[in-house]
């Protein structure tokens, strides 16, 4: 692995920042609004303004149409992503130094994390199936439930009540035989809206890399990393009068992925995994000036089949499968008692089942929760208290709480946010019932956290907007579950005690005048994730958890004139350890990545055609997100999207 000259990168970045300006779309927005955002009946989105959050909406449709969530997050944020290789490889997120099972992923407010592993593979989620992505840092357990130590990613579908008929078609071809395509269709009127979107992708991922585990680092081609995936999503929105809205959705997806070996081994067997998922839900909302009611029910099913086929001799094919279902039902009711006082209450109920060759019998669990909340707001000050009681888990969980406060100074435009809360994660089905080794006596992971944030947003007389934010936080995670050898086999135990703490900063500047647009954004985070289970260390940072870098930096410059747009993204990921004791022989080098994109859109009376050319990893950096799994080098993509009866401005309506 060669190291990129940091000095060259610094010079290039400064030059690029000076030359590139503007953004083709005003898609992304930092979410520190003066007023609360109501995303049509989504309880989990209504409290966005009280937390450090980021919303990506337009940019999903314009810059990343068809990309998976992993690609969007890698290129638009500085969140810590680990990926095992090329397109469609297992990708997980570690927000704020926590584990992948500590980030809750929601689809229209419904958690879609796997009940067996607690995570969701971000490469399984296609961005063209959502209208907005909300990234919320450190969400209280009293608000969102289990698995939110790091935060939450919310995929949102929204209706466009002004839409009559519109559709879009896109296609993308790229390096190493990559091909992707999809289409979306919307129709309706002010009383109902129907949306459908589908996609398919095939990526052989046979990219070249330097094998650092062999003499003289020979150049090799990645093997057994082929991906095929396809998905279909539908949403139906119905207005019944002026008070009732019904939203029903379905999402079906299939993925066939070969699993490559590490660089250090030649495949003795060929591994393959197939994932099937089906999700349907219905939500009923009733709105009045004084009262909001939300009733949700959903049914989610996931199946995973894993297979190993020996390369040589041995005709035995080993395979295993797991099937899960998740049935959540919830009701919440909120009253605006006065102009300044709000109270809310509700309950959730969940049923989980799992069957598979790794369990002795079908697993079936039931649990629920009761929650209440109160909020007070006056003169740009708002405070709230939330409580939640989890029922039926037998994991030693106590009452969850969160206290939030927000104040915005009219004079200066500065907003202050603070939050104190506790969070939890219930043990997964695998952790409790896996054969061999599962531990049904596991306790829930719990911990208290605190956020302090300050932000400033300003719109000047000239069409220039600037936003700056700074958030400091800490989050304890007690009884962190870890699989350890127990003699005969490995078992999960509540062994770890972790303190995650750090700083998140965000600066964005946007200028737009007519068809000319310039934008710059930089996000930097410093993250300590300290394992206090280790008794003897020389310094505090010797406790840093593996795969959590201290430094993450992301900077994006964009420039647009008329139909032409260009984007340049720089990302720095600091050094990461791959073992608990920071063996220096085994750590992962820091790396720099630069991506570039140019596009041109042709505007017609009925829509637009946008052609884009993208280069990822412009300087062909050799790097690993996971030890011994090489990431792709420089790659090229050509894409075209045609939108009928839509313009970019249509996507800017919230």
């Amino acid at each position, binding site marked *: 692995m060669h190291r990129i000259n940091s000095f060259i990168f610094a010079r290039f970045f400064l030059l690029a920042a000076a030359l590139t300006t503007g953004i083709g779309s005003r898609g992304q927005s930092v979410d520190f609004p003066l007023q609360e955002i109501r995303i049509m009946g989504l309880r989990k989105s209504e409290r966005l303004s009280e937390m450090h959050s980021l919303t990506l909406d337009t940019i999903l449709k314009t810059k990343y149409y068809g990309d998976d969530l992993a690609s969007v997050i890698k290129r638009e944020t500085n969140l810590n992503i680990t990926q095992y290789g090329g397109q469609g490889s297992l990708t997980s997120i570690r927000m704020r130094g926590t584990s992948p099972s500590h980030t809750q992923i929601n689809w229209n407010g419904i958690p879609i994390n796997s009940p067996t592993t607690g995570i969701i593979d971000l490469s399984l989620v296609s961005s063209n199936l959502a209208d907005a992505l909300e990234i919320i840092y450190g969400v209280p357990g009293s608000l969102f439930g289990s698995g939110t130590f790091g935060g939450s990613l919310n995929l949102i579908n929204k209706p466009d009540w002004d839409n009559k008929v519109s559709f879009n078609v896109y296609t993308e071809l790229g390096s190493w035989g990559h091909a992707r395509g999809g289409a979306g269709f919307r129709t309706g009127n002010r009383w109902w809206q129907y949306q459908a979107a589908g996609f398919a992708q095939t990526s052989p991922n046979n990219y070249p890399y330097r094998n650092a585990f062999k003499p003289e680092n020979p150049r090799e081609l990645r093997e057994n990393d082929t991906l095929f995936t396809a998905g279909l999503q539908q949403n139906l929105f119905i207005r019944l009068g002026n008070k009732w809205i019904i939203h029903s959705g379905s999402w079906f997806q299939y993925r066939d992925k070969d699993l490559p070996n590490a660089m*250090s081994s030649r495949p003795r067997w060929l591994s393959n995994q197939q994932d099937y998922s089906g999700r349907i839900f219905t939500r009923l909302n009733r709105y009045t000036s004084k009262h909001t009611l939300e009733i949700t029910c959903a049914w989610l099913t996931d199946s995973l089949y894993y297979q190993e086929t020996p390369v040589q001799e041995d005709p035995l094919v080993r395979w295993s499968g797991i099937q899960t279902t998740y049935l959540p039902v919830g009701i919440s009711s909120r009253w605006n008692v006065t102009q300044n006082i709000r109270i809310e209450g509700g309950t959730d109920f969940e049923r989980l089942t799992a069957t598979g060759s790794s369990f002795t019998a079908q697993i079936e669990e039931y649990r629920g929760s009761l929650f209440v909340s109160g909020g007070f707001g006056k003169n740009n000050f708002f405070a709230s208290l939330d409580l939640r009681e989890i029922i039926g888990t037998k994991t030693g969980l106590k009452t969850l709480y969160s206290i939030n406060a927000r104040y915005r100074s009219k004079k200066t435009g500065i907003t202050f946010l603070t939050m104190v809360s506790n969070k939890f994660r219930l043990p997964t089905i695998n952790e409790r019932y896996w054969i061999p080794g599962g531990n049904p006596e596991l306790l829930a992971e719990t911990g208290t956290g605190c956020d302090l944030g300050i932000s400033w947003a300003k719109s000047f007389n000239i069409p220039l907007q600037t936003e700056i934010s700074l958030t400091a936080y800490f989050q304890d995670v007690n009884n962190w579950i870890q699989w350890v050898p127990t003699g005969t086999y490995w078992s999960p135990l509540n062994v770890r005690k972790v303190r995650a703490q750090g700083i998140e900063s965000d600066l964005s500047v946007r200028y737009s005048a007519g068809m000319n647009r310039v934008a710059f954004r930089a996000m930097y985070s410093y993250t300590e994730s300290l394992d206090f289970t280790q008794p003897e260390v020389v310094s505090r940072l010797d406790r840093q958890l593996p795969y959590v870098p201290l430094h993450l930096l992301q900077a994006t410059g964009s420039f647009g004139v008329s139909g032409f747009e260009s984007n340049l993204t720089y990302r720095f990921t600091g050094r990461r350890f791959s073992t608990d004791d920071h063996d220096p022989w085994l750590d992962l080098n820091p790396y720099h990545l630069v991506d570039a994109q140019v596009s041109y859109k042709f505007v017609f009376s009925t829509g637009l055609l946008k052609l884009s050319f993208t280069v990822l990893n412009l300087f062909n950096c050799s790097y690993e997100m996971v030890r011994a799994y090489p990431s792709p080098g420089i790659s090229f993509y050509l894409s075209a999207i045609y939108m009928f009866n839509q313009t970019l401005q249509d996507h800017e309506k919230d």
Partner: protein
Amino acid sequence: MKRISSVVCLSVLLALLPSCDKDNPDKPADTGYRHGVFITNEGGFGNSNGSVSYFDPDSIKMVNHIFELINGRSLGDVVQSMSVHGNKGFIVVNNSQKLEVVDLNTFESLGIIDGLSYPRFFLPVSDNKGYLSDGNFSGTIYVVDTDLLQITDSLQCGFGPEHLLRYGNLVLVANSGGWGNDSTITVIDSRSDEVAWTWQTGYNPTDMVLDGKDNLWVLCKGKIVWEGWTLAEETGSSIEVIDVQTGSTIRSIPVGMTGDYFWPMSLGVSSDGSTIYYLESGGVYQMDCNASTALDVPLIQGIFYGFGIDPETDLIYGLSAPTFTANGWLLRYDPAGSLIDSIEVGIGPNRVVFN
């Protein structure tokens, strides 16, 4: 003049100073790595962080990651075992499917034999030949030319060949069953590189030693049958004592307990051949070579992933692997089982090689 004199003095002083090996300050000056102790560290499976540690018992110094230190690259995934012969070391890296050969004077890599399937152990048979066990189902013994570093022949043996043991011109192969079951020992005539006999023994023989009377002690893990990922059947473990002249079983000693289906793991023997050691889930056990029953109480209590007996001092080297995400430990005990010291080694230490 003064300036020139200073330079001359400095030069003379520098010439008189002992030379420093900046790359490897811990390498013994005269013998390289030809004498000492090697610990093979598997690493975490799939994490490509296996390694070899070198221990000098005289200076009580440990050098970890010695292969990376000398060769500038990692060994690979799951360092299974190591053997030495003359000036060469032979490192079997199981999940990287290779045999890495090093010069024991410098620990520099001399070459790689790859294209293997599931390599486990290498036994030097002569100055220019060795046998390599390979296979997790049907097994193969590769005949390796250690001068040319090439495979020259192959022999079929039982399922899952593991340890190899030399007795005169014979090489014994313990067929551990691999991911299935077996109950045989393959006997190879090393003069002709042909299978001479196949002996029957207990289920899944995995390790072997010879005692002072030249009886063969075979550690048999017991039969294990899986239905999917569920353990359907398990029989008890045993140590079989075999007459190496005839291949017949002299006696069978039950060891272990129900539910310990990954144990027992390895055998050892004292320098005079009078005491046999074996590793079980409760620790390191010992028994007299004339014993017919196993003791209930271990000599050394603890959870060990491997162990070895120093052939010169009879010190017991226990290897602890508390986790596969951090380094393990070498714990040395005297023959009575009292702890002497502990030294950090690599991840997942599994074997000790005395040279």
